[in-house]
């Protein structure tokens, strides 16, 4: 996945629509309410800008599980909303396969006592995979190879979302500086990079 100019434009445009739909500049809105509205706009903007992927459908489905989000989602997604909520075809397969995997895992442990490091590595991968399934939207109903594909795509989209929100913040701060030239706002450093 490439973060194209088209993606950036679609994201920012969708953010603007989201801000308008939820009236984030209303003075009477509480801090938490405004923050949630912004976060919701940002997530929808990311999903819309990316287009149809398993994780984007999973994201919208997850967001619509909360009742207070539904009218907003219906408003800004329009017809797309209903089609985005259709369940994934492969989801019915997974409960059965989990049983098979668990059974073979048990057989493996008994047969492979000599080769414990191999089994341990596989179990660790399985454990990390389950963790990843919880983090990637719609991950629960994805099979192994889809999960890894969607993860890569999701990570790149998340990074773009962070970058675009940061640039939005910078733009707002700059325009405030222009109108209130006395006030200085603090610089924000990227917090992720650690040693």
């Amino acid at each position, binding site marked *: 996945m490439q973060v194209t100019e088209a993606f950036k434009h679609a994201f920012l445009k969708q953010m603007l629509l989201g801000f308008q739909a939820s009236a984030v500049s209303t003075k009477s809105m509480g801090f938490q309410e405004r923050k949630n509205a912004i976060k919701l706009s940002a997530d929808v903007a990311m999903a819309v800008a990316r287009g149809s992927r398993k994780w984007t459908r999973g994201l919208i489905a997850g967001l619509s599980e909360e009742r207070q989000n539904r009218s907003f989602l219906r408003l800004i997604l329009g017809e797309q909303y209903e089609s985005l909520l259709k369940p994934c075809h492969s989801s019915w397969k997974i409960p059965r396969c989990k049983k098979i995997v668990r059974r073979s895992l048990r057989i493996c442990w008994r047969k492979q006592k000599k080769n414990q490091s191999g089994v341990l590595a596989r179990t660790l991968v399985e454990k990390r995979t389950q963790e990843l399934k919880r983090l990637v939207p719609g991950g629960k109903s994805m099979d192994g190879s889809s999960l890894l594909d969607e993860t890569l795509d999701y990570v790149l989209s998340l990074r773009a979302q962070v970058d675009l929100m940061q640039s939005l913040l910078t733009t707002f701060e700059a*325009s405030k500086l222009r109108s209130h030239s006395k006030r200085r706002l603090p610089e924000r450093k990227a917090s992720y990079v650690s040693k």
Partner: protein
Amino acid sequence: MSSRRPRSWQSSSASRITEEQINDLVSKLQAVLPEARIRRSDRVSAAKVLQETCNYIRSLHREVDDLSERLSELLASTESSSAQAAIIRSLLM
């Protein structure tokens, strides 16, 4: 990681990730993770890369949360017209 695969594993391929798929995605994910986390010259285990990916996703979620808070603070004291003007300006940049 052992390359031997007992027959009982092969029947459950639907939710199990094969080693080839892992190796392919390990290199792609490594390229995407921040440099500070995993040295690219080392051959790292799939489990390590998956773990670092989980950590990275969580950290990106925290960043989005933090940025939402900062935007919230800023928009609280901004006129809606100038907020929209700022976004349109970013769109045109």
